[in-house]
């Protein structure tokens, strides 16, 4: 399950950022996202969360979204895994 979420999340980021295959493999827990990548503005993050909902079959409430979970790849992955497990 955890591995699947990791893989799905890397795939979503690849699709959103237009990365080459394999490029997202270099993301680790500390890789910066929102606030670090200029192309990830608020509309892009909104799109990212919608894709997460669609592909992981989860619903994300607006008040669950905070800066910490969006700041790093590790934060986002932990959030997605927790949502999927719950």
């Amino acid at each position, binding site marked *: 399950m955890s591995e699947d979420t990791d893989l799905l999340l890397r795939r979503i980021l*690849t*699709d*959103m*950022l*237009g990365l080459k295959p394999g490029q997202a493999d270099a993301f680790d827990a500390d890789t910066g996202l929102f606030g670090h*990548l200029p*192309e*990830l*503005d*608020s*509309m*892009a*993050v*909104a*799109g990212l*969360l*919608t*894709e997460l909902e669609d592909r992981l079959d989860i619903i994300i409430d*607006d008040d669950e*979204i905070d*800066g910490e979970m969006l700041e790093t790849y590790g934060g986002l992955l932990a959030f997605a895994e927790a949502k999927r497990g719950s």
Partner: protein
Amino acid sequence: MTPSSWPCPLPGGGTREEFAIQFDAGREARLLIVPALFDEGNRMRRFTVEVMRRLDAAGVDSFLPDLPGCNESLQPLEAQDPTDWLDAMTAAARYFGANHALGIRGGCLFTPQRLPAFHYAPVKAAAILRQMLRGRILSAREAGREETREKLAQDALEHGITLAGYDLGADFYRHFEPMTASAEAVAIAQEHVGGSGLWLRAEPDENAAQAGALAAILAGELPA
């Protein structure tokens, strides 16, 4: 590719010229393309024109009109209503002599009813608004303001709302939200085009393989 214009009907009567891009060689297959909406429209525009170039090479004429209030249009977006957009696309189809229509993403909501239509990756209006509202909540939060979806939706219905820089009037919001694409159209899913949809990109991008695939699907269905 030729820049062009067409007389767009105004709700109060009369017309106003709106911009369009066209590939017109007087051929049998004439396709009206209704562009993707709002920020997706920006991200998909280059792809859309690339599809038109490939349709031209395959012997298909195509026409890409602006929706009033969008792209080069000088009409105020906040004064638009979805009915105006449907009327506008119907008028554009008639003016250009289109015999088929293609909607792209949210553009699928506005393909003229009288034409056989293809819908590329159609999306519900509610899903478009949901994502734009989320973008607004996130940017407000970043600026230290707290906004809620319920309050924003209520404001939108009462006074209109600005989402992702687009001024949507209260009437537009109310009439747009329940819209879904016609089930009669031929839907073309992203999996038939291959790869991931370019509307997902954080920045506008292009993809020659996808443009070629979509044009080939369309050319195969249209009269030669």
